[in-house]
């Protein structure tokens, strides 16, 4: 039942896998340098030429890419192929600023299909199985093909879901920059296999940018090895995890990430949607009836996340009528929904009761067990 979609690749001896990665890294470094003015400039700033990339460890000579770069080059600065080469564009909803545009050649789509087929086969799916996409669609979604809402969960939550539904629940991983969901755990449920022929992953110390020691927690950095419309060099996704390079008992030799342990920024994920406190702040700043201080509280009630935003009523806005205050909290909630795409409960509190910012203010209280 538990088979391999692409056994040659999935079970490839580590030595061969590294050799393949090395070849592909050299190719992609040359490719982006020759074709992308963005990367060429970055390479020059870092003082590196494609010839300097000889072996796998030379990846550390390459410059990092971040989400900010993707925004700054909007719309297609990082996807420079002529349009007739690009088969598809996926555009993020742009909830945190400018949307990011990811292009795909037909080959990129095929790569995605193959990697997802590997992932689904590894959890026991195969010919004749039906996939139900159980997603509440709004006007924002992430991913393509098979849809998913990514949320941090604990082993405890997974156990509860499995016990109450009688089905197995698996971790799946991918970001829109990588091509959406294309990596998952195998049926053994012990870490998400990141296909090494397609992605070179590193775990770095977010502060120094140096690779962390094997088995230590670090920020995940991804270099795409077989993606041509939108290649990424050392892309900092912002997720904290532990990389495990030991071959898995399922027979796959590809490295695993053991669990998403958090974020390097203050992003929180609520009901599968990315929320940045700065988004909340920008909404609140525009409403004169409330103060500048706020607190975001995330709880898990039953199976669902509940987000509460506490805001202070200003003295001048306090009108003595309950109806006015109710409509104020409703208005704040609606404006937040307009920007965040999720419903937040707004709680009005007395001025001065929310802690003032001293240096970096604690704006989020996450009561979920992850």
């Amino acid at each position: 039942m538990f088979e391999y979609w692409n056994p040659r690749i999935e079970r490839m001896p580590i030595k061969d896998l590294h050799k393949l990665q090395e070849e592909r890294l050299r190719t992609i470094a040359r490719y982006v340098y020759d074709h992308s003015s963005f990367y060429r400039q970055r390479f020059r700033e870092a003082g590196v030429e494609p010839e300097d990339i000889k072996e796998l460890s030379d990846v550390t000579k390459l410059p990092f890419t971040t989400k900010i770069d993707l925004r700054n080059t909007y719309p297609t600065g990082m996807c420079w192929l002529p349009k007739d080469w690009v088969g598809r564009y996926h555009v993020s909803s742009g909830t945190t600023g400018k949307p990011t545009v990811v292009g795909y050649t037909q080959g990129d789509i095929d790569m995605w299909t193959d990697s997802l087929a590997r992932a689904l086969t590894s959890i026991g799916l195969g010919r004749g199985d039906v996939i139900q996409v159980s997603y509440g669609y709004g006007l924002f979604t992430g991913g393509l093909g098979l849809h998913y809402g990514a949320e941090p969960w604990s082993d405890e939550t997974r156990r509860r879901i499995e016990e109450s539904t009688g089905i197995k629940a698996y971790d799946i991983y991918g970001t829109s920059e990588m091509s959406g969901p294309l990596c998952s755990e195998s049926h053994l449920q012990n870490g998400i296999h990141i296909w090494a022929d397609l992605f070179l992953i590193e775990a770095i110390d977010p502060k120094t940018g140096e690779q962390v020691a094997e088995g230590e927690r670090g920020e995940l950095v991804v270099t795409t090895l077989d993606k041509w419309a939108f290649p990424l060099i050392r892309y900092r996704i912002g997720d904290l995890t532990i990389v495990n390079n030991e071959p898995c008992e399922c027979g796959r030799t590809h490295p695993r990430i053991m669990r998403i342990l958090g974020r390097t920024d203050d992003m929180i994920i609520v009901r599968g949607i990315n929320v940045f406190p700065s988004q909340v702040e920008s909404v609140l700043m525009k409403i004169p009836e409330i103060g500048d201080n706020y607190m975001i509280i995330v709880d898990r009630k039953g199976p669902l996340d509940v987000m509460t935003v506490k805001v202070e009523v200003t003295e001048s806005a306090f009108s003595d009528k309950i109806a006015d205050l109710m409509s104020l909290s409703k208005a704040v909630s609606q404006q937040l929904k307009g920007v965040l795409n999720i419903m937040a409960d707004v709680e009005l509190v007395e001025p001065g009761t929310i802690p003032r910012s001293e240096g970096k203010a604690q704006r989020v209280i996450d009561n979920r067990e992850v």
Partner: protein
Amino acid sequence: MNMEAIKQISIFMENKYGKMARGAKALGDAGVNIRALTIAEAGDFGIVRMVVDDTEKGYKVLSDEGFTVSETEVLAVEIEDSPGGLYEIANTLGMNEINVDYAYAFVTAKAERAMLILRVDDVKRATRVLSEAGVRVATGEEIQQI
């Protein structure tokens, strides 16, 4: 400014243990006496409305204590302490298309009459029509001296 209108103090109060006690203590320590009080609750928070003998002082001590406070003009009208006492007032306002936002009553120490505190959408006109109907509208001074 209306001669008859009296000032009510409204306090925004989170629905939490001890909040009310803190406000009450501030008033007590300052020697401010509460004539009438009502709490409107709305889930996470409530509004405490009160008429006190010294509005200015009451407002200041609550404000100093960190509460969000506002002053609202309300009417204090005398109401017959007998069946049908409320009808005359309510009917007069209704016939004149004056809306009552909220009201609360208290009985004076002498207990001869009840006092009804009214928040209406047109204080001036309400005072006039009630006076014309023979209802006595109390002044701020009277409230202070009760």
